């Protein structure tokens, strides 16, 4: 009797796992197909980060140190991901709410966690061409002195993306309670976090021009730690032994933000079913 019950339990668990994987993969694929299926997507995505990083690279050169132009080029490559997190990840559920798609997700057995993870995966892979294009164009034009890429760079890059998209998951649940103002909130977060996290300049550490208190606040943003670690490996050839505090903090932040995001999401969904609040976009 107990054996049959546990077999049933295992069967249900397996079914849930299969659905989870299928949902995550299909959501990622939809995003990738949408982006790669239309080359214009890549062209328009490259524009903002590329021109901004070129302008800031000019500024670095004029300020006196051509060797620092790499900060601007690296920033251009990474800002594409931050843009993707804020515009296509954090605000996606809000957009889905406004367009009515969220009801299809909630009324299906698809776990929202799988949708968000799939969206992140799709976002990372879909943004890759724009990010690489900015890095290549910037490097060709300014020839900044990059240290040869190492395993440490790859690890930091991946961990930064996990933490960044984890932040996207946390934000996406919060965005569900926003309405028309979500676009303005996007702008506020995009520029403020771009500034504080030092995408284009070191906002923490010994080269930071910011006061310690501001640096402390900036350190709470995963992107800040990721950018700092990336700059230190790529331009100052530091290795994992020097960067382990950044990496540990990034890993902790990634886990915490994904956990908080998913808990908030399930709370908002439950509250929405009770009050009908998150369903306001529906007739």
């Amino acid at each position, binding site marked *: 009797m107990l054996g049959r019950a546990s077999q049933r339990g295992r069967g249900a668990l397996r079914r849930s796992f299969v659905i989870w994987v299928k949902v995550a993969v299909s959501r990622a694929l939809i995003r990738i197909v949408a982006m790669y299926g239309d080359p214009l997507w890549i062209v328009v995505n490259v524009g903002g980060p590329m021109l901004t990083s070129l302008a800031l690279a000019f500024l670095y050169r004029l300020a006196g140190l051509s060797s620092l132009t790499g900060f601007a080029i690296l920033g251009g490559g990474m800002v594409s991901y931050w843009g993707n997190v804020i515009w296509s990840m954090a605000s996606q559920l809000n957009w889905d709410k406004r367009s009515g798609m969220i009801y299809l*997700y*909630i009324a299906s057995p698809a776990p929202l966690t799988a949708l968000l993870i799939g969206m992140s995966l799709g976002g990372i892979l879909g943004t890759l061409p724009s990010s690489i294009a900015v890095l290549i164009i910037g490097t060709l034009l300014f020839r900044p002195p990059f240290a040869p890429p190492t395993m440490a760079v790859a690890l930091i890059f991946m961990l930064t993306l996990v933490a960044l998209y984890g932040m996207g998951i946390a934000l996406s649940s919060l965005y569900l309670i926003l309405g028309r103002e979500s676009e303005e909130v996007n702008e506020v977060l995009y520029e403020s976090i771009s500034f504080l996290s030092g995408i284009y300049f070191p906002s923490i550490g010994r080269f930071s021009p910011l006061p310690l208190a501001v640096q402390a606040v900036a350190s709470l943003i995963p992107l800040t730690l990721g950018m700092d670690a990336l700059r230190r490996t790529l331009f100052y050839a530091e290795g994992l032994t020097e960067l382990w505090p950044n990496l540990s903090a990034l890993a902790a932040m990634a886990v915490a933000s994904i956990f908080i995001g998913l808990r908030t999401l399930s709370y908002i969904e439950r509250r929405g079913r009770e009050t009908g609040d998150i369903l306001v976009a529906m*007739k």
Partner: protein
Amino acid sequence: MANVVTENLTRVFETKSKRILALDGVSFEVQRGEVFGLLGPNGAGKTTLIRILTTLLLPTYGRALVGGFDVVKEAKKVRSIIGFSSSSERVGFDFVTARRNLWFFSQLYGTPISEANRRIEELAAMLDFQDQLDRKLYTLTTGYRQRLNIARAFINGPQVVFFDEPTNGMDVFSAKKIRELFVKEAKTNSRTIFLATHNMFEAEEVCDRVAIIDRGRILAIDSPENLKSSLSKPVVLLETDIAGASIGDPTQLEGVVGGTIKVDDENEAAKIRVILRDEDFLEKILGLLEKRRVRVFNYQRIEPTLEDVFISLVGAGFAERERGIEA
């Protein structure tokens, strides 16, 4: 076997200033293979009921079972056996083909890929959009997008499919195709089709049974024929000049159970549709109209429609109800 059961289902929305009773003790059952219509004016509670049955909203009191599962305690099980489509939501992802969109929605239910592909072809054939399957969504015309929206609701082979105003704003040809699909899916595949609509013609044409809902309460449930034949009172249509519009609420007229007035400004005419307590009251109404200098061009007893059933139950038509005119 009942696929949808509601028992004393009640939903109250509370805001700072008011308390709205959206559903008030709703109880009914819908069988397997049945096309069931929920007919009522806007604001009657149709969408709230569908939201509860599709697990999007919790009831305040009462119980609802879909496919034998409780919508509150077993929401996940309910979700895996239902399909849902509303005219108000977006069809899918614009930069992705119709086929890929349908495939994505099939994966939300974990449908095996070969099975999903088979259903996509089958649904596209039934709704006549096979040649549109490989086009990106943004290139599709409104009619094809709407068909895709309906196909999506069937993509997981659901036991119960809920539709909220499915043919709203749809062209006649697409609407016809969709109604045929509803009947076929119910009768061939024993699915329950649950349809919330304020389209009387649609309810009459496809529904095995219709529940008439107003202000959160079910007023009557039966087949469209039985509902109409239960209306023993005479329904009369009077065609008058524009002065006919000035009589106001028809229920104020002696012997009138309920009625509607439609004004045709362009032709300076009005159509007064009244349900009389008794045929004898017709003379009195004609006399009253003459006294009020309303010219009556024509009057005749007509076959009742479902709206007449609604009028006889609440005293006013859908339009008047939506404007808040009390019977």
